[in-house]
C-alpha cells in the first residue's frame, strides 16, 4: 500500500471527512443492532433526534450531558498531550465533587459568588490532588498511570462510599448522600434563566456550568498551544529524549499535566453538585469519566474537536433514553453498545479507512493540479 505524503493531505480531509466516515459507519452498524433487536432503525434515529432536539427540555438535557463530557474529555486530552493515558477521570471527578461540597458548606458565610469561585477552586484542587499521586508514582517510580489511575478510581469510589455512609451522611435520611447545600448557593439553572425572560419551561439539569465548560475549553486551548507549559508538556509527550536535551524536565511536566488533567475532571463535580444534585450523591460521576476518553480521542485531543464530540455523545445519551422509553426491545444497555461501536470506529479503528480516504483526496487534488 502506498504511503501518503502527510504534508499533502488537506486539513479538512483528516479532521472532518475521516471522522465523518467513521461515524457514519458506526451508526450504520448500530442500526444493524437495532434491526436485529426487532425495531426499526429509522424510527430509532427519528426518536434520537426528537429526544435530543425536538423539545426545549430535551435539548437542555443534551447540553447538560455535553457539559460533563467536555470536562472529562478536556481532562483526558491535556494528559494525552504529555502522552499520559489518564484513565482516572472518573475518580478525579468524584473527589473533585467532594472538594466542591466541602468548600461550599464550610464557606457558606461568604457572599455567594465568592463561594462559587472557591468551590470551583476546591473542585480543581481536589481533582488535581487525586491525580497527583499516580503522577508522582509515574514520574519517580515509572508506575504506569494507566494502572494506577484505574486503581485510584476504585479507591476513590470506596473512599466516597465510606465518607457518605459513615462521615458526611445526612443523618436524617437513609440514603448514602450528604445534606443539601443552602439553596442560595445552587447554580442558576436553565429554567431559572429562562424565567428571567418570562419563558416558562419544565425542569432540566442544565445550568451555568455549561459556560464554565466553554471557559475550560478556551483555557485548555490557551494552555496547550499558547503557553510555555503546554509547549514543554507536548515536547515531553512527543520526544522525551529531546526534552531532556533541551533542559525540559519530564518529571515536572508529567506531574503538571496530570494535575491539570485531574483538576479539569474535578470540574465535573461543579456541574453535578452545585448545578444538579446540590449534595453529594453516591456514584454521581456515573461513567462520564470513561466516556470522556472516547470524547477526547474522537475530538483529536483538541478543544475544537472535543466540543462536537461531547455534543454527539450528549445527543446519544439523551436521544438514547428517549428511544428506550418508546421501544420496548431496546434497553439502556443497547445504547452502551452503540457508544461502544462509535468508540470502536473512531478510536480503535480510526486508521481503518484513513489511508484510502487520504489517498483518494490527494490523488484528486493532484489530478486537478495537473489539469
Amino acid at each position, binding site marked *: 500500500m502506498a504511503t501518503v505524503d*502527510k*504534508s499533502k493531505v488537506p486539513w479538512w480531509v483528516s479532521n472532518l471527512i475521516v471522522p465523518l466516515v467513521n461515524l457514519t459507519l458506526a451508526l450504520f452498524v448500530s442500526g444493524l443492532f437495532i434491526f436485529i433487536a426487532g425495531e426499526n432503525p429509522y424510527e430509532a434515529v427519528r426518536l434520537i433526534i426528537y429526544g435530543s432536539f425536538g423539545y426545549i427540555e430535551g435539548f437542555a438535557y443534551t447540553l447538560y450531558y455535553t457539559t460533563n463530557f467536555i470536562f472529562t474529555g478536556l481532562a483526558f486530552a491535556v494528559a494525552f498531550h504529555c502522552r499520559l493515558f489518564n484513565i482516572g477521570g472518573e475518580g478525579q471527578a468524584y473527589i473533585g465533587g467532594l472538594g466542591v461540597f466541602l468548600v461550599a458548606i464550610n464557606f457558606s458565610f461568604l457572599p455567594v459568588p465568592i463561594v462559587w469561585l472557591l468551590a470551583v477552586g476546591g473542585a480543581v484542587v481536589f481533582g488535581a490532588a487525586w491525580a497527583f499521586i499516580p503522577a508522582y508514582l509515574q514520574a519517580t517510580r515509572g508506575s504506569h498511570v494507566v494502572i494506577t489511575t484505574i486503581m485510584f478510581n476504585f479507591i476513590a469510589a470506596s473512599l466516597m462510599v465510606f465518607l457518605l455512609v459513615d462521615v458526611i451522611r445526612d443523618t436524617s435520611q437513609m440514603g448514602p448522600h450528604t445534606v443539601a447545600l443552602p439553596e442560595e448557593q445552587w447554580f442558576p439553572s436553565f429554567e431559572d434563566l429562562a424565567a428571567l425572560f418570562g419563558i416558562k419551561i419544565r425542569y432540566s439539569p442544565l445550568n451555568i456550568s455549561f459556560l464554565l465548560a466553554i471557559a475550560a475549553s478556551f483555557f485548555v486551548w490557551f494552555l496547550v498551544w499558547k503557553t510555555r507549559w503546554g509547549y514543554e508538556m507536548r515536547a515531553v509527550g512527543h520526544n522525551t529524549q529531546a*526534552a*531532556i536535551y*533541551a*533542559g525540559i524536565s519530564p518529571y515536572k511536566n508529567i506531574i503538571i499535566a496530570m494535575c491539570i488533567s485531574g483538576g479539569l475532571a474535578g470540574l465535573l463535580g461543579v456541574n453535578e453538585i452545585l448545578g444538579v444534585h446540590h449534595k453529594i450523591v453516591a456514584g454521581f460521576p456515573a461513567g462520564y469519566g470513561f466516556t470522556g476518553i472516547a470524547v477526547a480521542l474522537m475530538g483529536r485531543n483538541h478543544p475544537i474537536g472535543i466540543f462536537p464530540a461531547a455534543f454527539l455523545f450528549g445527543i446519544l445519551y439523551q436521544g438514547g433514553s428517549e428511544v428506550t422509553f418508546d421501544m420496548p426491545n431496546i434497553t439502556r444497555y443497547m445504547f452502551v453498545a452503540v457508544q461502544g461501536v462509535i468508540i470502536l470506529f473512531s478510536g480503535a479503528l480510526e486508521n481503518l479507512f484513513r489511508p484510502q480516504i487520504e489517498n483518494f483526496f490527494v490523488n484528486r487534488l493532484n489530478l486537478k493540479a495537473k489539469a
Partner: protein
Amino acid sequence: MVSPILELANINKSFGHVQANKNINLTINKGTIHGIIGENGAGKSTLMSIVFGLYQANSGTIKVNGKEINLRSPKDSIINGIGMVHQHFMLVENFTVLENIILGFEGELVFGKNLEKAKKDLKNLCDTYKLNIDLNSTISDLSVGFRQRVEILKSLYRGAEILILDEPTGVLTPQEVDELFKILRSLNEEGKTIVLITHKLIEIMDLTSEVSVMRQGEMVGHTKTKDTNKEKLAEMMVGRSVLLRLDKSELKTGDVVFKVEDLTVKDDLDVTRVKNVNLEIRAGEILGLAGVTGNGQTELLEALSGIRKVESGEIYLDGKKVSDSQNFLDPRELKEKGLAHVPEDRQRMGLVTDFKAYENLIFGYHDQQPFSKSSILNHKDIISHSKKIMEEYDVRPQSPNLITSNFSGGNQQKIILSRELNEKPKVLLVGQPTRGVDIGAIEFIHQRLIEMRDRGAAILLVSVELDEVLSLSDRIVVMFDGKIVGEKENKNVTDRELGLLMAGVV
C-alpha cells in the same frame, strides 16, 4: 578448485535519497572465511541484510551455488542455506536454548517425536562443532558469548551452509572472542562458508582468507588476506579521496574555555563507556574527535552537555567547574552559561519531529525573552524570529508552520544548527553535523562552523566522517574503547594514521 557459493551482481539499495549500496558486486567462494570491512555507515550491514532477505534490493541479482534466487524474506534465505547472526541477538529471553532453536520449526502441535529428534540432532551438531551448549539452560542465564553460540547453533540447525556474522565481536570480551574464533575455524574446517562483517582490521587479519572493502556504499576492493596488510586495508577503508579542504583562516586561539579532566561516564546499562578522558579546547579552535561509532563518543557528548551523569572527573567552562560526580548543571543551566549542543541524532534528541518548525527553532530557548514572557509564548516574535533565521540559514522550505518531519534531513539539521549557533555560544559541542545530509548542505554547515570558530567559539566536533574531521579541525584526538588513544595537530596527519588509531591497531 574453488567454486563460488554466493554471487551478488549490481546490487543497489537506497533508503529515501540515501543510497546505502551502489552497484555492489561480490563473489564469495565455497569454504572460505570472507571478511567484509568498512567504516560505520559504509553499507556492510545493509548488504548482508539484503542477502538474508530482510531488505529487498532495488535492483541486482543474487545467485546461490550458481542458481539465481529471489529473496523476499529470511525464510527464503534459510531455505537456500543462508544463516545470519545479528549484532543484536534474536532470542526469547525466558525460553530455553532448545525452545529458541526450534521456534518457528516446531513441526507438531504437541511436542513429542519431533522434539526428541531435534534434541538428538542438536547434540550431534554441538559435538561436531565443539559448541558446548546445554540445551536446557534458559537464555537469560547465559552470558553474551553463549547466547551468540545459540544463534550460531540455530543457523546450523536450520541447514545454513553460509553463515553471516554481523559485527560479532562488538559485545564480547577478549576471551570470548578467542572462543568464537575457535568455533568459526572449526565450522570452516567442516566445510561451512563464513562471512564476517567487521570494522576491526585485526579480526580480518586473524581469521579471514579473503577480504572485501566497502566505503560509502561502494565496494572498493577485493583481495586475498595474505596479499595485504593492515595499513593497506585501512587506506582502502577510509579512502584517499581528495579532501575537501576548506578555506580556513590562520588559527588564532585564545584561552582554554572548556576543559575536561579525567572524565568517566557510564551508559544506561551501567557499562563504563568513557574512560578517564582529558580534553582542552581553546577559544577560536575546533577540536576534532574521530573514532568509530560506539567507542564512547555519544556518552561523552551527553555528559558534556549535562544530559548524562558524570561518574567521576570534572568539567570546567570558562575556568569554573560546572560538573563533577556530585554536582552538575542541567542542560538548561549550561545553555545559560554559553554552551550549545548539536546532538548526534537529530531526530531522537535534537528535534521534536511532530512539532512545527518554529516550535523547534526555539526549542531549549523557549523560556527566554522575547519568546516567552511570564510563561506565555509570544507567537508574533517567535514567527518573525523563525522567518529571519530560516532565511539566514537557508532552511527550505521557508515555512515556519510546516511540521518538522516534512523537512529533508539536511534542512532539519539546519534548523538545529541555526537554533544553536544563533545564541553565539562560547562552547559548541557538535555531533555528526552532516550525517545523512546532502552535499550542498554539508558545505554550508562546514562554513558556518568555521565562522563560529573565527568568531572565537571553542568547538568540539565529534564525527565518524574522517574527511570532515580532517577538513575542519585544528587539532584531532582519536577515541577508541572509551579512551583517547592519540592526539595530533592537524598539519601533517594523514587519514591512514588516524584510521589505524580508530581501529585500535596502534
